[in-house]
């Protein structure tokens, strides 16, 4: 029963969607203020969600109804279950076993695959091109993201998130070594969430809506909610691996620190969105393969050397 409660209420679906929408509001507000606009009121994301759920749900005739309507739910569940393995307030997550960092990273990739299949099965030309671009981008940021997140794990010699954050909270100065990894994973997370310079799959000025072109009503609402929750969970993952300060000092303080860290990460996203123009798909691939992956390799090598030195 407690597990169900955790799953559905506290660190699970309800808390995540409320906090995810609040983060999306913060991002839009800061983005607007950077452009000298007033920006939306605090309840804008909630109002959008309610409006979308109330709207009629049109499905293209040739689309495969099962796959078309299943994908949003699929993306949503994948993202919410990922949060159970991430230590939010203490260094101990709800469930943890060795290797759960791989599970979390895998669960965070599922939404992108869901977008692809959703876009593909809606048989509209724009959605297809958007879907193909989502995959193209997936190949670009996946490798640097995995490498930069696993580098601290090598130093901490443990493959479970709780173990990693426990190790870094004991000797916090080690996380300075992961500075490069933190920057790369931040940029890669930007690409995963299809934000700012990497929002090419749903670039409205080119293919109007990308994978979500044919979605409307409840399904579109779930997709948007999945993206918002993914933002929070991504932020939580990065902060638990790279910024483990004060996690050990009791649940309440830890939780507030978690909220603060998430807000900081969301702020960084907004600033990136305001200051950078959208890159073309081939430029993204060049940028990731020629720049990010070598840097991630350097980070892994640095961690290996430090591990030698410590022992």
């Amino acid at each position, binding site marked *: 029963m407690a597990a169900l409660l955790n799953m559905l209420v506290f660190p699970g679906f309800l808390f995540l969607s409320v906090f995810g929408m609040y983060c999306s509001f913060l991002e839009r507000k800061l983005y607007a203020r950077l*452009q000298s606009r007033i920006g939306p009121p605090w309840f804008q994301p909630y109002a959008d969600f309610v409006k979308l759920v109330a709207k009629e749900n049109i499905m293209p005739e*040739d689309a495969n109804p099962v796959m078309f309507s299943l994908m949003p739910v699929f993306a949503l569940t994948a993202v919410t279950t990922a949060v159970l393995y991430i230590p939010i307030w203490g260094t101990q997550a709800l469930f943890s076993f060795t290797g759960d960092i791989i599970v979390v990273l895998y669960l965070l990739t599922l939404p992108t695959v869901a977008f692809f299949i959703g876009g593909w099965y809606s048989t509209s030309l724009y959605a297809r091109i958007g879907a193909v671009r989502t995959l193209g981008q997936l190949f670009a940021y996946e490798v640097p993201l995995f490498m930069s997140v696993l580098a601290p794990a090598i130093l901490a010699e443990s493959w479970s998130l709780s173990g990693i954050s426990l190790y870094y909270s004991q000797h916090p100065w080690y996380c300075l070594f992961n500075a490069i990894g933190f920057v790369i994973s931040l940029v890669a997370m930007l690409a995963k969430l299809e934000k700012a310079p990497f929002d090419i799959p749903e670039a409205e000025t080119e293919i109007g809506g990308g994978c979500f072109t044919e979605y409307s009503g409840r399904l579109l609402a779930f997709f948007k909610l999945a993206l918002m929750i993914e933002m929070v969970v991504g932020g939580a993952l990065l902060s638990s691996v790279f910024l483990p300060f004060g996690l050990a000092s009791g649940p309440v303080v830890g939780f507030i620190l978690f909220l603060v860290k998430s807000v900081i990460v969301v702020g960084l996203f907004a600033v990136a969105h305001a200051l950078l123009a*959208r890159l073309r798909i081939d430029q993204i691939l060049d940028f990731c393969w020629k720049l990010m992956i070598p840097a991630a390799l350097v980070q892994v090598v640095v961690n290996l050397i430090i591990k030698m030195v410590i022992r």
Partner: protein
Amino acid sequence: MAQSNSFKIPIGPQHPALKEPESFSVALRGEKILGVDIRLGYNHRGIEKACEERTFLQDVYLIERVCGICSHSHSTCFVQAVEEIANLDVPKRGLYIRTLFAELERVHSHLLWLGVAGHEIGFDTLLMYTWKDREVVMDILAMLSGNRVNYGMNTIGGVRRDISPEQIQEVLKGMDILEEKTKYYIEVASQEATIINRLSGVGVVSKEDAIRLGAVGPTARASGVDRDMRRDDPYAAYPDVQFDVILDDHNDVYGRTVVRLKELMESYKIIRQLLKKIPDGPIAIKAPRKIPAGEAFSRYEAPRGEDVHYVKSNGTEKPERVKVRAPTLANVQVVKHMLKDRYLADMPIVIAAIDPCFSCTDRSIALHRHDSRKRDVVIWETVRLAGIEWYKKNGIDFTALNKRFMARLQK
């Protein structure tokens, strides 16, 4: 020869990137554009036929609404032609005020374009900043003429409103603020990495092609074509002002951005000269209602390029023929050439780079030639037909759609 698969995606006539209805059906292989088939004419309102049924005075307001952004260009061009036929000599002060509005319109049109270009490459902050600064010049226009867009300043024989000394100080203050901001944009355009690599090397047109295909305005000047109607075929008060024509040899969208930005600086210079040397005296003379028979051909340097009007009158108070050729039409011919072998993602920015104003273009003509190297379409054929079929079914006849939808609800 490996069977190459290319499929056509229709962009437009309704599309978020294109502010106005024009349709491009793009033959694509993956992300590369093979050929573009441009179809215009959606915005054709038969203005030329309408002009023949209205008096000259009413036509001034009709011609002004050919395009929202360059309204003063069209009305000045038309009025100049009519004044040439009736050989009225417009008072100097009227010409100065008319030229002042021409340059103010160029400032607001270029700032608007800069914002749209930023939006097309996904850089909305530039849009918000440029349009915030554009409010300065829009307020000046509203103060001088009573309306932000269709100023209605021109009438046959001169200008309708005078400009008071306080208003002149107001305009000069506005120009200092704008010059300050434009310097900042020139700096941004030359340093911001993401903008530069998204704009340079895109939509390349060599100088010979620009002349051969008849490109005009900033699009041509960015490829080194030295043509500017204000200097080659001076009209209104341009003979009395000194300014230099901005040329650039980047031949691509980045070059057009630089040309437009520097033209802004030139416009501020011109406006200051005009306001310093504006003579006193009447601003208009009484024009006869019936214009004597004759014909005139007038050219004007609109923000987008060379705007051309031909007016023929037959002695009555209604013109016999009015022909308008907007600058965007000349540039649309060049777009197809620019888009060859580019990426789909570049398409909006290349189209936006000629600063298309299709409401002007549709006033006159479109282009359609399809790419000669016709690729046989193999794998994607079903997709293409399904796509077009699906759009046609849902796009055009809604009645069938509703019937089927109701039927499904009953099921």
